[in-house]
């Protein structure tokens, strides 16, 4: 177990290092951030000085060396625009994104698993066909359109949910959290629903496919021959066996939503980190983009690690080696 952890840790570090190289190169070949910092009427001398201050006058290798050293030391530099540590900027906005994503994922699971199990167990029923048609819509409808429709219906037409912002937040461990207030819950529903539909549809289809596969197995019939209820056969014997691909997709989707909830955040003016990323890209605010991408890489690596551990909890035949 210890050997496995060590191996995984080295692997994860390696992945993050490769990402750092890619991020660095990408940043170096796209745009010149100097013009974002200097005034429009700056002289050549001023530009050169700004370049020197930002360390952009040195060779790529030296720049990368400095970049990597400061990354390892946890110093991600200051935002060119906000003149604040880039990390602080992102961490301030992260709780908003994470809580929206968590609500979205919870919604996706609560809806997708039972419907997927039902559709997998009764593939020919009319209800299953409706469910599957719905899931196809969930996959193919773009988030920005769904978001706008939801705003029109629930915010404008019926006025049940607010259309934008985060509402009241409460402080918990120094983080500002919406889920601790009723108003926050009110505000989070529409964006979370918008964000969850795609994942919901994918998880539903994975669950259904898995259940159809498992349904043909002898042990399902054997469980029924023991006298187990249909519900127990489906959920206790079937679902667990169908879960490995579902967990895989769940992990990938979780990372994906945290990293790229940008569109939903923009539509609902949700003050999360996705919106910060888009703003930073427009302003070529390199330190913020770099920290963001590194953080996203870290999130994916950690989620994948957790998913691998969850596999072993589901299936005793899978061991950590």
């Amino acid at each position, binding site marked *: 177990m210890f050997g496995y952890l060590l191996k995984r840790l080295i692997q994860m570090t390696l992945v993050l290092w490769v990402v750092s190289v890619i991020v660095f190169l990408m940043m170096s070949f796209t745009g010149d951030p100097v013009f974002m910092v200097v005034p429009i009427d700056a002289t050549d001398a001023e530009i050169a000085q700004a370049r020197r201050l930002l360390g952009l006058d040195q060779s790529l290798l030296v720049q990368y060396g400095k970049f990597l050293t400061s990354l390892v030391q946890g110093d991600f530099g200051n935002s060119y625009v906000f003149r604040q540590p880039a990390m602080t900027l992102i961490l301030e906005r992260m709780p908003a994104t994470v809580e929206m994503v968590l609500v979205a994922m919870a919604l996706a699971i609560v809806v997708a698993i039972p419907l997927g199990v039902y559709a997998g167990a009764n593939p020919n029923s009319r209800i299953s066909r409706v469910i599957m048609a719905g899931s196809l819509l969930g996959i193919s409808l773009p988030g920005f359109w769904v978001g706008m429709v939801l705003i029109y219906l629930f915010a404008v037409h019926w006025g049940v949910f607010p259309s934008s912002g985060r509402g009241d937040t409460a402080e918990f461990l120094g983080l500002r959290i919406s889920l601790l207030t009723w108003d926050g819950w009110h505000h989070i529903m529409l964006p979370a629903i918008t964000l969850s539909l795609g994942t919901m549809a994918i998880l539903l289809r994975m669950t259904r496919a898995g259940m159809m596969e498992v349904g043909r197995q002898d042990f399902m019939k054997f469980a029924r021959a023991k006298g187990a209820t249909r519900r127990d056969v489906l959920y206790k014997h079937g679902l667990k*066996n169908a879960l490995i691909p579902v967990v895989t997709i769940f992990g990938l989707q979780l990372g994906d939503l945290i990293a790229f909830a940008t569109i939903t955040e923009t539509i609902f003016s949700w003050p999360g980190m996705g919106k910060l990323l888009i703003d930073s890209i427009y302003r070529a605010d390199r330190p913020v983009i770099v920290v963001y991408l590194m953080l996203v890489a870290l999130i994916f690596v950690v989620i994948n690690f957790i998913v691998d551990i969850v596999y072993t909890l589901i299936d*005793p*035949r899978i061991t950590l080696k």
Partner: protein
Amino acid sequence: MTRQIKSKPLLAVQDLHTHFHTFAGTVKAVNGVSFEVGAGEVMGLVGESGGGKSVVGFSILGLIDSPGKIEGGQILLDGQDLVSAGENRLRQVRGREISMVFQDPMTSLNPLHTVGRQMDEVLCLHSDLDAAARKQACIDMLESVGISRAEERLKAYPHQFSGGMRQRVVIAIAMLARPRLIIADEPTTALDVTIQSQILKLMRQQIADKGASMILITHDLAVVSEMADHITVLYCGNVVERGKTRELIETPTHPYTRGLIDSIPDTAERHDRLKQIPGSVPDIRNLPKGCNFKDRCPRAQALCAEREPTLTAQHGSLWAACHFPLKPGELA
């Protein structure tokens, strides 16, 4: 071995029809099968692959899934019909009154649950025992099917057992709630020959200990002839012959039964080639008029193509569905 046969059988299957409605047409997998199993009896259900044997077993437990359906007949357990019984009644029957052992022990256990949990499930469903008593019952049962260190093994997963051991576990699960009837569907087909006889011995001992009855479904006449009191031979979803094991094996009257017996390899006499029944099972979506076996039968005559034979009494305990049955001593 003589067993007392009660007037009222434990299980009576009467004119059972189980059909599968597929795109390619209706498959009449079981088409008018009747037989009885008395308390403590072992009945062998014999036939070729695709003869509808397993479907009979699943029909008894009400485990026929769409597109299959029991289209007619009765399955009487103690005189109570199971075909018309609801799911709740059937769940009480399954595992408690009638349990089943499947063909392939590699796939009949849930790979993600411990053996203990899979055994415990039966007792949770069918007994009022508390957790400690259930555990003890599972340990006792595992030991009685010849698994040592049973308490430890309860925590093991199926993949940690060999095929023969898994079939022992399956049998243990089937016997756990002390059912009165076990349906064993080719219980040894997937196992090594050396393990086969061990498992058969175990099953015989288990049902004798507990006074249970058994329906042994198999294509292997050698196996049933050792185990069964009665044999029912199925062909194309119909009973073609039935009777007491000894008479049926020694002096069969239906040419199909004769063919099955002749195709058992005989170690005493050396044949250059194994005997076989010529031809193959007809397409059961599209059964011919008259006798289903006529195209493969050495005794077929014009009448066989016109009229389907019905079960009629032959010598001794035998009943056969044949227009021209074999007389004792006569070869096909």
